[in-house]
């Protein structure tokens, strides 16, 4: 994906979370992850992405 495409995805996700409100973001994001994993059709890639996501600094609630 080009940087512009990455940015468009980022924006589409932000808007999707707002459209799903008041449902909590993790619900819609979890469904999305499953859908994307199926579309990717590659369990090893999914495992790699999970590990990459966990490498990030702690999220809003697990921080301090």
């Amino acid at each position, binding site marked *: *994906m080009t*940087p512009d495409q*990455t*940015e468009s995805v*980022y*924006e589409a*996700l*932000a*808007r*999707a*979370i*707002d*459209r799903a*409100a008041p449902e909590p*973001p993790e619900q819609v*994001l979890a469904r999305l992850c499953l859908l994307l994993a199926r579309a990717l059709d590659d369990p090893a890639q999914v495992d790699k992405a999970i590990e*990459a*996501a966990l*490498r*990030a*600094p*702690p*999220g*809003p609630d697990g*921080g*301090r």
Partner: protein
Amino acid sequence: MRPAGRAETDSLYFTYPAFDPPRGAARHTLSERTPVAIVGAGPVGMLAALTLARHGVRSVLLEARGTFNDGSRAICVARQSFHILQSLGAVAPFEAKALGWTTGRSFYRGQQILEFEMPDGPDERFRPMYNLEQQYIEQFLWEAIRNEPLVDIRWQSAVTGLVPAEDGVALDIADPEGSYTLPADWVLAADGARSAVRRALGLRLQGENYEGRYVIADVKMAHDYPTIRRALFDPACRPGGTVLIHRQPDDIWRIDYQLGEDEDAEEAIREDVVRASVASVLAEIGHDAPWELEWWSVYSANTLALDEYRHGRVVFIGDSAHIVPIFGVRGLNNGLADAHNIGWKLGRLLTDRAGPGLIDSYTPERRGATLDVFANASKSARFMTPPTRGWQVMRDAALGLALTEGWAGALANPRQMTPFTYADSPAVLADDPGFAAGPAPGAAMIDLSLGGDFLSDRLPPDFTLVCFDAALAEEVAAQPGAPAVVRLDDDPRIHARLATGAASAYLVRPDLHIGARWRHATAAGVAAAMHALTFREETR
């Protein structure tokens, strides 16, 4: 605002001059008609006066105050603004005093997650950005015009009303010694965000106000950190908020911090609250030495602009025409480009070197630039101050990934630079399809190192043909109304950057934007382009 006990211009590092209104013999000619009256001697009004003077046009510059603007306000001066100052012969004091920078660092919850570099290299005469307090910007511009016989600066002279007429405008002016009317052929309204001229014409800014409010505070301290923009996202000192830290000359540091939704702006700007907030930011960045509070203010993110920048003989430039959010650092830079743009166009018109159509290109070019700033600023604003849960979640996700994933870091890059391209302007010619690369018409001309000096050092403040062929250069220079000519060496390195061959040429406008280019230039083609770009005939 300043700490209790200090007057508005009682600065820790800057001595404000006190300017008198016109006195004595100067008062006999106050009402003499002027080709151009400029309302407001902020940075934008002064740059307009300087540009007009370089084009041989007289102006009267009217300023309500008796000194420069208080506080350091706009501090980031972009490379393109330095090029404008350079072409007007005024850049030296700016270069000597300002702090150039290329790097930004972003921190998320105390951890550095990203370092970005703005485009720079050996072909660039100037750094991408310079930090300089607005008082100095105004002082250096004033020093450039104070002895300029074509500029008549009148301090403590407020415009109180205006009456537009077919061939000009009559301005009502009040100063401490009386009031008078000044007839002007043209008026440049550079009177800032609360423009009196705008109000007198019944015009309103249109657009949006954003939620994010920032306190901007300047402190004086000996603090050991290079000139690098620091952005602190969700720091311990302001959970959920964003803080920006910039170094300025004279040991002055700018701390911008976002106010939370529940924070009351009135209270947030009380001196004790500002002191406590600044102290907590300084603690977070590990500054435990003494510091002094210099000045502070509150600033909100707006994207507001006039629909049309020109109304008859009145042209709006700078903050009177548009208010842009702080993040893009475009408030001042955008205004300087306005002043320069209308300055050379009016300069040519009033010295009979252009037709009136040239003036019509001002609004589309500069309003287009403002709308581009708005688009970028809206993105930056959503990143710096996420307006909803969705933007918040995604912003935090991008910051969380930035440490390990370069592409996520790119989402956090403030993209503060790149001058606007006047792609659809009537004052730019269509590109020569023979070019596959290089800067296209409408874009700002790129700079080039020429071994010892730079291309930008050689560009005069007027139309310039940049070419390689000696015969072409001679033939063009011999034509009436010819542009200046800068001939470059037939050097493969230069050809690679400009996508040129030995017969190619670029026609650079006085504002350093490209007006036309040719793979195989001819003197006749250049003459026709000059004719078209200066609107010598209305029907082309």
